[in-house]
């Protein structure tokens, strides 16, 4: 559980911000109840887990919509300067993850979802296609566009202009 909790939390924080902990708990409770219905390897379990998390996210967004509360994601983390002498070391600092999440939030929803599932969930193209109910070709296109946009964002270092 622990080794997938961190990616799961980051994936949820990417979408819902502060409510990620609650949605993660709901996700694990659902998994605990339905574990008998699952069969597969670890990669398939991750796909199932993140599929469950996506559904819990949708439920959470609906609850928030009913409460007329817009999930506020505050990007208070400064964008890491790409031109630094050791960008990898910069990225690995305590704020590195938050910086990466803030960067991903600048992507359109569909591209962000594909990149997040590929990177955070560790799913391959076909598994992402199953989770998102898209064709593998569509996933590749979204992935390519997302990477291109991310590359442009990081190259300019100005995420606000995207």
């Amino acid at each position, binding site marked *: 559980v622990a080794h997938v909790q961190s990616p799961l939390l980051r994936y949820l924080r990417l979408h819902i911000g502060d409510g990620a902990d609650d949605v993660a708990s709901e996700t694990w409770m659902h998994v605990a109840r339905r574990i008998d219905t699952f069969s597969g390897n670890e990669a398939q379990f991750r796909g199932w887990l993140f599929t469950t998390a996506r559904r819990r996210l949708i439920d959470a967004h609906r609850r928030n919509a009913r409460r007329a509360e817009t999930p506020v994601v505050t990007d208070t983390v400064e964008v890491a300067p790409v031109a630094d002498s050791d960008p990898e070391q910069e*990225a690995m600092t305590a704020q590195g993850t938050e910086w990466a999440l803030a960067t991903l939030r600048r992507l359109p929803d569909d591209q962000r979802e594909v990149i997040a599932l590929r990177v955070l969930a560790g799913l391959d193209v076909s598994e992402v296609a199953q989770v998102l109910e898209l064709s593998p070709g569509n996933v590749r*296109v979204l992935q390519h566009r997302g990477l291109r946009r991310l590359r442009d964002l990081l190259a300019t270092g100005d995420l606000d202009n995207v």
Partner: protein
Amino acid sequence: MYEFPDDGELEALADEWTINRLLAGDLALSDAPDGLGELAVLVHALNAPARPAELIGMEEIVSAATTVRRESVTGRDGRVRRRHFAIAAALSTLGLLVFGSGLAAANVLPDPAQRFASDVLAHVGVHVDHRDGSPAPTATTGKGATVSGIARTPTTGPGKGAAVSGTASNGQSRAVTPSTTPPVSTPPVSTPPVSGAMPTTAAHPSAPTTTPPRAQPPITTRVPPTTPVTTANRRP
């Protein structure tokens, strides 16, 4: 399924193998092609080891998930156990009905059981007699009723038994009749029916060996083979 059009914007960033390594976090910065170095940094940041703050509450989550899991399993097992109990109860009832009906029809149950079985089976259309001579609930018509009527007459003696036997067997019985077989020298002792007592062959020492039939229970299905009249009649 919707297919994205090839809009010509998708010049290759790298080959697919490199992209897969990049997204999996396996592409080192030193190996990254031009333009992918920043992306590699981003991916490494996303896949950075879990921070302690991210694992706060994991114990509570695992504990709650374990509880939910246990409750789920217990609830399911409870439902399964209840279902099995219901099936076992139904099969037991069915077996008791079939087996008990056989015993009741054979008239070999103890009196209370026989009476109970007779009453219960009467509700499902199976008619068996009470051992103590009380009439079966529906033995009011047909040959059974006729035989029962003969058996209930106040007269006693071999003649009554012969009449019962003859009626029940449509005249094929070889039961003793007063006109063909002389009565036994010792006058028969009429024993009143004993309610709730099992029939026994242990007679009083002073009693004759051929005890005349007691007031037999109304016979609608069979004649007990051990009735003295029939036994005596079969002797050569």
